C-alpha cells in the first residue's frame, strides 16, 4: 500500500474512531435485550396487530419494537393492507345502502303527506347546476389538503352569504323550508368538520394561539345545535315526531372529546412531570432514558418542586454496581444526584482521579478540552471534591473558552457553558454573540415541508429537522442569553406546542414530557397575546364561527315557510 493510501487509511480511521462502540457495553446491551425478549415474548396477536396499528394502541410498551413489527410475514402484511381498503369499501357501501333506503322512505312519506311543487323545482334547480356546485365544493375542499383551512373558510363564508340571499328569495317564493335549509347546513358543517378533525390538530403547520381542534369543535357544535325546528313546531307537523338523533349524539360526543383534548394539551400540569421524575426506577433506553430524566428532574428542581429522588437514587446505585457509564453519570448529576455519585463507594476513585489528572495535564499542555460527557462527570466530581487547582482551573477555563469559539454543536455548546459555570469562568457578555449566532444557525424555520418545524436541530446540518431535546437546550440558552434577532418566537412556541400535544386527553406524558417542559420554560419568552395576533393567527377560528352563525341565520330566515308546513 502506498504512503498516500496509508495516510487516507489513517485519516478515515481517525475520523470514524469516535463512533466506535464499547464492545462490552454493546454485548451487555444485547444480552439484556435477549433476556427481556425471552422472558416476555410478545403474543402472536400483538405481533400481527403491531404490523399495522401504532404500538401505543396495542399496549405494546415494554416490547422491543423491532420484534413486534418485523415478525409478521410479507403475506400477513399484504393481507392487512388489502383488508383495510376492503373494509372501507364495505363500510361505504353499507352507508350508501342505508342512506338510499332512508332517502327513499323520506321521499315516500313526503309524497304521502304533501305534494310540494317547490321541492320539485328546487331539486330541478340543483340538478341543473350539479356540475358547477360540484366544482365549487371540490375547489373549497382542495386547499385543506395543502394546509390552508383559512382559505377554505373564506370561500365558504363568501358562499354562505350568497346562499343566504338565495334562501331568502327562495323562502319568499315558498321553495325552501327551514328543515331543508337546516339539514343542508348541518350536513355541510359536518362534512367541513370531518377533514379538519384530522388536519387541524397538532400537525397544523400554521402557528396558533389556541389549539386548532377548536375549529372542528365549533363546526360540530354548530351542526349539532342547528335550529331547525323546535319540539313544539315539530309536534304540529303530521307524521313528524321530535326525536334525538344518534348522529347528533355522536357529533356532540366527538366535539366534547376534541374540546377536552384541546384543554388538556393547553394546560400545563407539573404533577405528571413530577411523577415521571420520582418514579424513574428503570432506564429502559439506558443513557438516553437518563438524559430525558435529567431534563425533567433539573427542571423540577429549578422550579422549586423538590422532587423525591428516592427511586432514581436506588436506580443509580444499581447502575453503579455495573460500572461507571459517563453518559449516565453526567445525566444523573444534572438531575440532582451529584452528591450520590461523589459519595458512592462503588466508584474506584483512585482510577478516576488518575484519569482526571491525566486529562488536566493534557489540557495544560495545550490540548483542546473534551466536550464529551466522559469528562464532564469527572469535571463535576472534581469540582465537588475540591480537586481542581488554581492553575488547572485557569487552563480549563481558557481552553473551554477557545473551544466555544470553534462553532460547537448544540449539545456541546450547552455542555461547555455548563463547564464554565462549574469552573466559575462564565462571562455571559462575551459568550452572548456566539450563542446568538449559534442559535440562529441551529434554528429550523417553518417551510413548506410536511412536518411542523420552527424548533432547533442538534446541529446545523442541511436537511435536518427540529428535535425536542435540542429545542429544550436552545430554550435554556435563550432564557439566559435572550432570544436572538431572526428567530420567530411564534414558530418556536407552536413547534413546542405541536410536539407536546397528545391526541387523547390526559394521555401519558412519557413521550411528550421534554417538549412539555420546554414549552413551560419558553412561556415567558413567548410573544404576548394581543388582539391583533389573535385575529391574525385565529382567523380560521373566527371564520368558522361566522360560518356557523351565517348557517343559523340562513336556517332561521326560512321561518315563514315553516309556518306554511305546519299549517299544511
Amino acid at each position, binding site marked *: 500500500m502506498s*504512503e498516500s493510501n496509508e*495516510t487516507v487509511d489513517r485519516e478515515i480511521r*481517525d475520523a470514524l474512531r469516535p463512533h466506535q462502540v464499547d464492545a462490552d457495553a454493546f454485548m451487555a446491551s444485547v444480552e439484556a435485550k435477549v433476556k427481556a425478549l425471552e422472558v416476555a415474548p410478545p403474543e402472536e396477536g400483538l405481533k400481527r396487530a403491531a404490523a399495522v396499528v401504532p404500538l401505543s394502541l396495542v399496549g405494546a410498551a415494554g416490547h422491543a419494537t423491532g420484534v413486534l413489527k418485523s415478525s409478521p410475514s410479507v403475506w400477513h402484511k399484504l393481507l392487512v393492507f388489502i383488508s383495510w381498503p376492503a373494509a372501507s369499501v364495505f363500510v361505504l357501501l353499507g352507508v350508501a345502502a342505508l342512506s338510499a333506503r332512508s332517502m327513499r322512505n323520506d321521499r315516500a312519506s313526503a309524497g304521502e303527506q304533501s305534494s310540494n311543487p317547490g321541492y320539485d323545482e328546487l331539486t330541478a334547480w340543483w340538478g341543473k347546476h350539479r356540475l358547477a356546485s360540484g366544482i365549487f365544493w371540490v375547489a373549497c375542499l382542495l386547499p385543506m389538503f395543502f394546509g390552508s383551512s383559512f382559505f377554505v373558510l373564506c370561500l365558504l363564508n363568501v358562499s354562505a352569504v350568497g346562499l343566504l340571499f338565495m334562501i331568502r328569495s327562495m323562502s319568499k317564493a315558498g321553495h325552501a323550508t327551514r328543515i331543508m335549509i337546516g339539514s343542508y347546513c348541518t350536513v355541510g358543517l359536518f362534512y367541513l368538520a370531518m377533514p379538519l378533525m384530522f388536519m387541524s390538530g397538532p400537525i397544523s403547520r400554521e402557528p396558533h394561539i389556541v389549539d386548532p381542534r377548536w375549529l372542528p369543535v365549533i363546526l360540530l357544535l354548530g351542526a349539532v345545535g342547528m335550529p331547525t325546528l323546535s319540539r313544539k313546531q315539530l309536534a304540529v307537523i303530521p307524521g313528524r315526531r321530535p326525536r334525538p338523533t344518534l348522529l347528533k349524539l355522536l357529533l356532540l360526543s366527538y366535539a366534547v372529546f376534541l374540546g377536552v383534548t384541546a384543554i388538556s394539551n393547553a394546560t400545563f400540569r407539573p404533577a405528571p412531570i413530577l411523577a415521571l421524575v420520582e418514579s424513574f426506577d428503570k432506564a429502559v433506553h439506558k443513557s438516553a432514558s437518563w438524559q430525558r430524566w435529567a431534563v425533567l428532574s433539573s427542571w423540577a428542581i429549578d422550579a422549586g418542586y423538590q422532587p423525591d429522588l428516592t427511586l432514581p437514587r436506588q436506580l443509580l446505585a444499581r447502575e453503579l454496581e455495573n460500572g461507571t457509564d459517563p453518559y449516565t453519570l453526567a445525566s444523573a448529576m444534572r438531575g440532582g444526584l451529584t452528591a450520590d455519585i461523589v459519595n458512592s463507594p462503588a466508584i474506584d476513585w483512585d482510577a478516576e482521579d488518575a484519569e482526571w489528572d491525566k486529562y488536566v495535564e493534557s489540557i495544560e499542555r495545550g490540548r483542546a478540552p473534551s466536550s*464529551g460527557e466522559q469528562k464532564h462527570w469527572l469535571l463535576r466530581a472534581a469540582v465537588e471534591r475540591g480537586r481542581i487547582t488554581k492553575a488547572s482551573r485557569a487552563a480549563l477555563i481558557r481552553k473551554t473558552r477557545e473551544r466555544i469559539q470553534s462553532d460547537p454543536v448544540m449539545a456541546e455548546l450547552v455542555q461547555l457553558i455548563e463547564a464554565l459555570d462549574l469552573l466559575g469562568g462564565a462571562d455571559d457578555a462575551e459568550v452572548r454573540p456566539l450563542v446568538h449566532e449559534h442559535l440562529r444557525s441551529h434554528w429550523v424555520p417553518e417551510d413548506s415541508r410536511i412536518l411542523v418545524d420552527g424548533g432547533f436541530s442538534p446541529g446545523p*446540518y442541511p436537511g435536518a429537522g427540529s428535535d425536542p431535546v435540542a429545542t429544550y437546550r436552545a430554550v435554556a440558552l435563550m432564557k439566559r442569553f435572550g432570544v436572538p434577532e431572526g428567530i420567530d418566537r411564534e414558530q418556536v412556541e407552536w413547534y413546542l406546542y405541536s410536539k407536546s400535544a397528545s391526541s387523547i386527553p390526559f394521555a401519558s406524558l412519557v413521550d411528550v414530557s421534554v417538549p412539555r417542559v420546554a414549552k413551560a420554560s419558553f412561556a415567558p419568552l413567548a410573544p404576548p397575546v394581543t388582539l391583533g395576533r389573535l385575529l391574525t393567527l385565529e382567523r380560521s377560528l373566527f371564520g368558522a364561527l361566522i360560518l356557523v352563525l351565517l348557517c343559523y341565520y340562513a336556517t332561521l330566515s326560512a321561518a315563514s315557510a315553516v309556518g306554511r308546513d305546519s299549517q299544511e
Partner: protein
Amino acid sequence: MELQKLVETYRAPLIGLIASWGCPVSEATEIAGDAFSEAYVSRGSMRGDPSDAHAVAGWLRGIARNLYRNWARSRHRRARVLSLETVDGVVDAVAESDEPGDEFARAAEVRRAIERLPKTLRQVVLMHYLEETSVRNVAALLDVPEKTVEGRLYRARQRLRTALDPPRSHESPTTASPFVPPRAEGSDRV
C-alpha cells in the same frame, strides 16, 4: 448460533451498514443491538444453514433492514442522508478524543468527505473502517464477493484522497495520532 460470536463478528459492519442507510450512528447502534437480539431469539425460524456465514449474515441484514425501516417510519425521516454528527451522544464522542483543534477540524472534514461518497462506497468505508472489520465479513453482510468490497474500498480511498486537502495527504504516517487504535490482528489488509 452463538450470540457472542455473532455479535463480535458483525457488530461493527452492521452498525456501519445501518448508518450508511441514512441513520445517525448512535441510532444505528441501537438498531444493531435490536437486530442481534431479535436474530438470536428468532434463530429457530431462520432459513438456511446456521453454520453458513452468508446465510447468517443475510438473515441478520434482513432483520436490520426491517428495523431500520420501522425506525425511519417512526421518525418520519424524509431526508435520509447520512449524518455522522446528528445525535448529541455521537457529537460528544467525536469531541471526546482530546484532539487539538486542527485535528478535530480535520476529522470533521474527513467525515464530511465520507458523507459525500456514493452510497455503495460509503457503505463499505463505514463497515470496514469503523472497527477494522475484515473484508470477508463485510462481503458476507453485503452478500457480494470479497473482490467487490476490495474494489469499492479502493475507489473510496481514491475519491477521498482527491477530495481531501492535498497538503495534508502528504503527511508521513509516523505523525499518526497516538489516539488511533492499533490495527486489529488478523484483519485483512486491503
